[in-house]
């Protein structure tokens, strides 16, 4: 690395001012120093709260109160960015130094077509360019990130883009002005694994073509080690280690890095998996459930589109079992969870709990059914009223169902609070200041107070960091053993599903395409889509299914225009002529596993021998 660095960060420290300007300051970043070589990719990895997002903001000199740059310099092209007057800095932003954030869906004005906003930016940072030329260049770049029919997409609005498409558009927005440095802050976090894998590959290719240096910040070690040349590990505001990506996972030097690598969940090597339970009776029986939404179509007079969100789903969940439903966003998981928790009825089919169809229930039996059937959602913030004390919040369902009152009520609430690990002195406090994990515990306590027999966990743990997630999973396990609760996990987090679910259904476009036990799904999946999902997981361990063989292009077709024949046909690497004619049925084999694919068992490629990501064999974990 003889070349002059593009960016040199020198002893950067950032502090957070206490409330109201008093109460002292707290360091967020301390003595950060590093170089970024031109045309290189520097990965920065840290857990949430490590200060990595503040660092990414500092790199574009966008640190705002109550954060404050206490000391240090960021040299770029011989000048200290932090000392530049705002007008000079504004000239660099977007032109030479570009930034992409974690949440692409809120990055643009929601009321203006995406393409036009990128043109606006381009014309702002390159004042000489003619509008037509700018438009041409934006469409070309949209093409380059493989946004299908870029010309038409140019005029669509942000809300018409999926998260992955939007993140591609933001990459276009960043690269269209040929910046020298791109700061990418956690850009794959909100995306499905398949899409995240595509975005990483794309960024790597583009980085070569555009000769841009990238600072890639993420909390997922698998992602960073996949894309970066060098990786910098940051903990509690300090750099603890810097190494080339391969060396870091192979031979971490710092104890913190080792702990970090240790914590990355494994899907194959030494994975913990639950045992399947075939003995117990069936609690939940889902039969041929369908749900279609009718939405108005803006382009034709009185036109309507039929969105087929769930198209004939059947499965059984046994008592005391954990059942998992996985799939990309838009596959119908969320609709199915609404149907199961009887927020809305299915158009067709039956959902039976303990043999009784819940569709026909009214009044008291419905209330009783709802009691036994609790839904926990992803967002722990909106579900809790801000003005009621925590105790009251947990009491509420008990009151509604008239299950307890007076002292018994209080005692019951204290019991469940203790059970989920909420300190008793929180009983009278308001939920302000609770962490996301604690809020989720309040929700769990609320559900648990009713002694449910089945809990639906719809992305319940996705918003939490890995440590808190692990704690809650352990809590769910204890509750399961103690009360015999059945769980239905709905999630896109494959590592979590691998760890807790005994039986797993894989959904694609409103259908279950594969249904089998944990081991069969992860070790010998029979549907190409399941394999594609597994191949796109970014981990630090060797994978049996390699992206070269299975990685998907693009995104699922929208559920309005579902392909004829096999609905996975448009993305399946193994599609053959029969797939276009015939829709494969979900056929069970003798062992209770099923896949909806015309290919017979032996016709898919062999699972790869386990070789570490990046081609280095990894030492056995010890």
């Amino acid at each position, binding site marked *: 690395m003889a070349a002059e660095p593009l960016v040199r960060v020198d002893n950067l420290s950032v502090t957070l001012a206490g409330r109201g300007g008093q109460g002292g300051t707290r360091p967020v970043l301390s003595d950060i120093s590093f170089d970024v070589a031109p045309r290189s990719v520097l990965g920065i990895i840290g857990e949430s709260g490590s200060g990595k997002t503040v660092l990414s903001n500092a790199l*574009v000199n*966008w640190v705002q109160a109550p954060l404050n740059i206490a000391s240090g310099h960021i040299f770029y092209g011989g000048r200290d960015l932090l000392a530049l007057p705002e007008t000079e800095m*504004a000239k660099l*932003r*977007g*032109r030479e130094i*570009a*930034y992409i*954030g974690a*949440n692409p869906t*809120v*990055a*643009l*004005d*929601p*009321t*203006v077509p995406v393409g036009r906003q990128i043109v*606006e*930016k381009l014309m*702002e*940072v390159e004042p000489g360019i003619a509008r037509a030329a700018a438009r041409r260049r934006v469409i070309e770049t949209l093409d380059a990130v493989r946004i299908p029919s870029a010309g038409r997409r140019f005029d669509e*609005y942000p*809300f018409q883009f999926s998260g992955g498409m939007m993140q591609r558009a933001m990459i276009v*927005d*960043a690269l269209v*002005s040929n910046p020298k440095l791109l700061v990418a802050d956690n850009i794959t976090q909100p995306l499905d694994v398949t899409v995240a894998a595509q975005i990483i590959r794309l960024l790597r290719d583009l980085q070569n073509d555009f000769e841009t240096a990238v600072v890639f910040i993420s909390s997922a070690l698998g992602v960073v080690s996949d894309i970066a040349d060098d990786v910098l590990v940051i903990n509690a505001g300090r750099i603890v280690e810097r190494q080339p990506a391969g060396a870091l996972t192979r031979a971490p030097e710092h104890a913190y890095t080792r702990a970090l690598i240790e914590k990355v969940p494994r899907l194959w090597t030494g994975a913990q998996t639950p045992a399947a339970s075939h003995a117990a009776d069936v609690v939940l029986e889902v039969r041929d459930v369908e749900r279609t939404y009718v939405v*108005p179509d*803006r*382009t*034709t*007079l*009185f*036109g309507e589109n039929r969105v087929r969100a769930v198209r004939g789903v059947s499965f059984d969940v046994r008592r005391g079992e954990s059942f998992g439903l996985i799939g990309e966003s838009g596959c119908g998981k969320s609709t199915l969870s609404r149907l199961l928790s009887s927020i809305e009825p299915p158009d067709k089919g039956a959902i039976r709990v303990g043999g009784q169809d819940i569709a026909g229930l009214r009044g008291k039996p419905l209330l009783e059914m709802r009691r036994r059937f609790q839904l926990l959602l992803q967002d722990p913030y909106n579900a809790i009223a801000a003005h009621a004390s925590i105790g009251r919040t947990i009491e509420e369902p008990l009151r509604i169902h008239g299950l307890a009152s007076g002292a018994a009520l209080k005692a019951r609430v204290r019991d469940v609070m203790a059970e989920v690990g909420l300190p008793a002195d929180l009983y009278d406090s308001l939920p302000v200041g609770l962490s996301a994990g604690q809020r989720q515990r309040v929700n769990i306590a609320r559900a648990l107070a009713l002694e449910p027999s089945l809990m639906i966990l719809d992305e319940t743990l996705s918003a939490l960091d890995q440590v808190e997630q692990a704690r809650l999973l352990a809590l769910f396990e204890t509750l399961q053993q103690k009360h015999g609760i059945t769980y239905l996990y709905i999630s896109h987090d494959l590592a979590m599903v691998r760890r807790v679910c005994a039986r797993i259904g894989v959904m694609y476009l409103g259908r279950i395409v594969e249904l089998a036990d944990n081991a069969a799904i992860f070790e010998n999946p029979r549907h190409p889509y399941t394999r594609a999902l597994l191949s796109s997981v970014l981990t630090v361990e060797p994978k049996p299914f390699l992206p070269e063989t299975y990685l998907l292009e693009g995104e699922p077709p929208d559920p309005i225009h579902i392909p004829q024949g096999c609905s996975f046909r448009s993305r399946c690497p193994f599609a053959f002529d029969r797939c276009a004619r015939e829709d494969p049925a979900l056929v069970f084999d003798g062992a209770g596993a099923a896949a909806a694919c015309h290919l017979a068992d032996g016709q898919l490629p062999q699972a790869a021998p386990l070789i570490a990501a990046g081609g280095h064999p990894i030492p056995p974990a010890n």
Partner: protein
Amino acid sequence: MAFAIEFFLRRLSQGLLIVLLVAFVIFTLLRVAPGDPIRIILGPMATATAMEETAQKLGLRDPIPVQFGRFVLDVAQGDFGRSFIRGKQGGASGGSQDGAMDMADRAPVMGLIATALPYTLLLAGLGLVFSFLIAVPIGLAAGLNAGRWQQKLGLYVSSLFVSLPNIWVGVVLIYLLSAKSGLLPAIGYRNFAYAIIPAIVVAVEMSPVLIRAIAVSIASNVQEAYFDIGQVRGIGRNRMIYRHVLRNAAVPLLNVFGAQMIGMLLGGLFVVEYIFSFPGIGLLTINAVFQRDFPIIQAVAILASAVLVLINILVDFASTTIDRRLKF
């Protein structure tokens, strides 16, 4: 394009239904309210037989739905009936004759409204212009500078204006600008200058709502992620404000305008026109109420509801055009 056609077809037909319903309610209320309209038409001296004869002739003894049907057919041809009181030449003529009266010499309601309407439109337009002149700078400054003195200024100005009754504002302005200094004329209408003081009164009443709506919608958009990210992307702060924040803030503003301000404006105009003897629809209506001139009251009420419905349709259309996520 298809969307626009479908939108207007659907909304106009719904709107028509609403207006018809409102019309029916008003029509019925006025007919079941105490006070025989024939007595009002013919005056206190008319004989019972003359009254019965007139009532038969005017169809007032038919069932209300039949009368309403006839009324709607007339309205469809632009005929809102004739005033009970006002003569063709202007001035009240009710009760001057005895014996069966001749409705033909009473003024058509449509004509009365057509004469008064331009004055009201002038006053309303000028009032809106004034309130925007007051509210836009104050509201914008307050919205863009949350937590600073501009925000307090906005709060103080709007609280002050809210607490002033418009009658009082009217009287004070007449005293200061007209009686004391002779700068502007105040009572009645002879030329444009007569509209200025009443328009200020209207503006004082309307601007607090507007100031708050502008301040709140601007402030919430400035907090949106796209505003900061836009600047990091390389677009200047001012351009972000003029091209994006204002555009997004327009949607809630339009809604406040359609849902709240137009209603306030209509109400405010009645009072203000009455205070200033301003010869618009408001004065016409208030006089009609005092004289129990039912045809005028019902025509104004129905037209007002139609205007409200129409403006809300336009507001919704503008909103969906600006923000394509909205559905109606």
